[in-house]
């Protein structure tokens, strides 16, 4: 039955995360923007303080959960996007540093064996996909994994870039090919723990925004890892492309998360702007015909509508996951809409606020910078449109490039 009301448990989580966002993230938001890549100690302290009870609670209830603290209760994925919106409202860069909530953790959760899930529990795992020569073209991956039959170890070679949290994480899920000539089918993912010889973080990128979060380049040179670090059961591994597909599905699950980030940052900017405007006597009459508004009112209302659409599309995508319906199309819609809408909202807020918006004395300019990444990472807006188009047209990758 169509219902726009969140469950009480979800609302509770929303309140809790809002408190964290406001009490923990916001106060240090500018600091970690200025001190790019510095480890966010307040976050680690927070996670340490909150993890045990949260884990106990969800386990105690025996509900299915994605293993990540924020996805809990009777509608875990809805809860996840709701709470991620709150935390991103606090600070997206810091949110991305959340230990044990890396993309790698999602991948392990999605396709790892029970043994792997247990072995890597508590590790903050990043995901390494992109290579200098290949952006959205995952099939063009050139990093290799070769089995040494003598030691039964995998030997990883290659270079990865844009590894979110690659510097501060404990482990990296690396995508590498067993045989370049076999295309997608031969691409597998491997867990490499930090400290293994042969893995080197060669660069930490300076970025436009989300500066609290590190983005690393990592080189693998004859990096040896145990055989069992190939992600997934042997069956998954042998299913060829399906193996990659499983990890790719991570994105269906994480796209709503990124969309929630976008919405959270944009909401922060919009709220700030409205508060500033209200303090100077501006009002926002919702019932009026749009043509009877002034330019600022119209902008504000349009932005609110855009964010509402993004939020609803995203709740839908998350709610489908909760009820076990495949949501690739809807997740891409949510990500595409949220990434674009939020980026435009933060930009418009800076514009409306003028010198106040442009100044680093306030956070709006930072939100603009932070927000831009949401239209880029985990599939640019263009890639999402491509996914949507293929899906509604029933076209293959070859028919619509």
């Amino acid at each position, binding site marked *: 039955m169509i219902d726009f009301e969140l469950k009480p448990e*979800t609302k509770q989580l929303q309140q809790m995360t809002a408190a964290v966002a406001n009490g923990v993230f916001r106060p240090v938001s500018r600091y970690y923007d200025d001190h790019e890549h510095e480890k966010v100690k307040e976050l680690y302290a927070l996670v340490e303080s909150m993890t045990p009870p949260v884990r106990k609670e969800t386990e105690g209830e025996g509900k299915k959960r994605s293993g990540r603290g924020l996805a809990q209760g009777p509608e875990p994925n809805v809860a996840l996007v709701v709470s991620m919106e709150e935390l991103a409202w606090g600070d997206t860069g810091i949110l991305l540093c959340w230990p044990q909530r890396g993309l790698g953790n999602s991948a392990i959760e999605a396709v790892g064996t029970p043994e792997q899930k247990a072995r890597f529990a508590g590790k903050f795992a990043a995901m390494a996909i992109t290579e200098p020569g290949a952006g959205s073209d995952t099939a063009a991956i050139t990093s290799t994994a070769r089995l040494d039959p003598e030691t039964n170890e995998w030997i990883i070679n290659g270079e990865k870039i844009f590894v979110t949290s690659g510097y501060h994480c404990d482990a990296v899920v690396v995508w590498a090919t067993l045989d370049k000539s076999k295309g997608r089918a031969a691409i597998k993912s491997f867990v490499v723990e930090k400290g293994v010889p042969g893995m080197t973080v060669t660069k930490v990128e300076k970025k436009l925004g989300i500066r609290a979060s590190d983005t690393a380049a990592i080189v693998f040179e004859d990096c040896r890892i145990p055989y069992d670090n190939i992600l997934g059961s042997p069956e998954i591994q042998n299913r060829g492309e399906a193996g990659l597909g499983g990890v790719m599905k991570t994105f269906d699950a994480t796209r709503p998360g990124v969309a929630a980030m976008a919405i959270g940052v944009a909401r922060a900017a919009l709220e700030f702007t409205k508060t500033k405007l209200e303090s100077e006597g501006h009002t926002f009459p919702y019932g009026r015909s749009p043509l009877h508004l002034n330019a600022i009112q119209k902008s504000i209302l349009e932005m609110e509508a855009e964010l509402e*659409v993004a939020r609803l*599309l995203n709740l839908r995508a998350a*709610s489908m996951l909760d009820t076990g319906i495949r949501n690739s199309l809807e997740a891409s819609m949510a990500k595409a809409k949220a990434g674009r809408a939020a980026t435009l909202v933060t930009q418009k807020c800076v514009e409306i606020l003028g010198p106040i918006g442009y100044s680093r004395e306030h956070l709006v300019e930072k939100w603009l910078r932070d927000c831009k990444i949401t239209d880029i990472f985990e599939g640019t807006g263009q890639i999402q*449109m491509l996914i949507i*188009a293929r899906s*509604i047209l029933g076209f293959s990758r070859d028919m619509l490039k």
Partner: protein
Amino acid sequence: MADFTLDEDQRQIQDMARKFAANELRPIARECDEEAVAPSEVLDKVWELGFCANAIPENYGGYDLGRSALTSAIMVEELAWGDLGLTMAALSPLLMMVPILEFGADEQKEEWLPKFCGERFFPGTAAIMEPRIVFDPLELGTTVETQGENVVISGKKCMVPLADQAEHILVYASPRNGDAPQPVKAVIVDRNTPGLSIGPKEKNLGLNALPLFPVAFDQCVVPASRCVGRDRGIDYMKLLNLSRANLSAMAVGVARASHEYALTYAKERFAFGEPIACRQSIAFMLAEAAMEIDGMRLLAWRAAWRLDRNEDATKDAGLAKMYCAEQAMKVVDYGVQILGGHGYIREHPVEMWFRNGRSFSITEGLAIG
């Protein structure tokens, strides 16, 4: 809990409306547009679906099945997908029935509601729009002044549906007594009231199948007892919100019609040896339209859901109407653009949806569910 799936009842109503739209409205839509008529058989067929009688309590002759803005939104999306003009014509009685049902005094309900429970289409209507630039329903130029036992109405209205058939018109007007702004009144006016004149049928850019008329009120004297809700009056904003939610849902229907047609066309039309949908410029227009249509629907549903909960829906309905009107215009424009030259000729329906789709930014109060 957050849930975006229809329940069984809603699914049945959606199914029924979808089939009705496909079988009864689509086949005659173009002809009705070209000839600017809403055939009475169609109005009767829609009437038989019982949308009026179902909502009216048994003591007034109805079936008392309740009303839901959300269910209405689901239904009108489908009907508008079939044809917007015919849908608005067929649902026009609600413009009069709902305000009386919601806010009418008991005697008014007793007097009027049974008329909407008959077997044949009862042409109810309302006059809200005014022939002014930058029209805003919150600043009505038509006035109503209390004079003793009567009220006097003056002003000009336009886009009044079925004014040629309706015996009575529900007129929205601003009270002129005193300086303080007072709530808008809705007055039931007899078509034969001296001073009331109905102009020739309007010709518009679109909505041709919907018979619309200008109606002028020159000092029309009406008994004060004809003011809906008597002294208590009406909640004008709620009626506007009900209409905005419904118009938003209709915008989804029209946009979806255009989008579906363009999608099929783009898959079947070949150029340079491939379907034209293989070009990103075409494919991305389709993808964007699909995304926006889903977004529009969720906004429309949320406004309706809010109304069903009896919460203030002014913000939700206002944003939904604004957004859906804007996006509908974009989507129907894409429809024509994707068909190119073929979209510009009247052999394909996209040009009709292009014209009809442009009505949503203009109309207010013309669809209450």
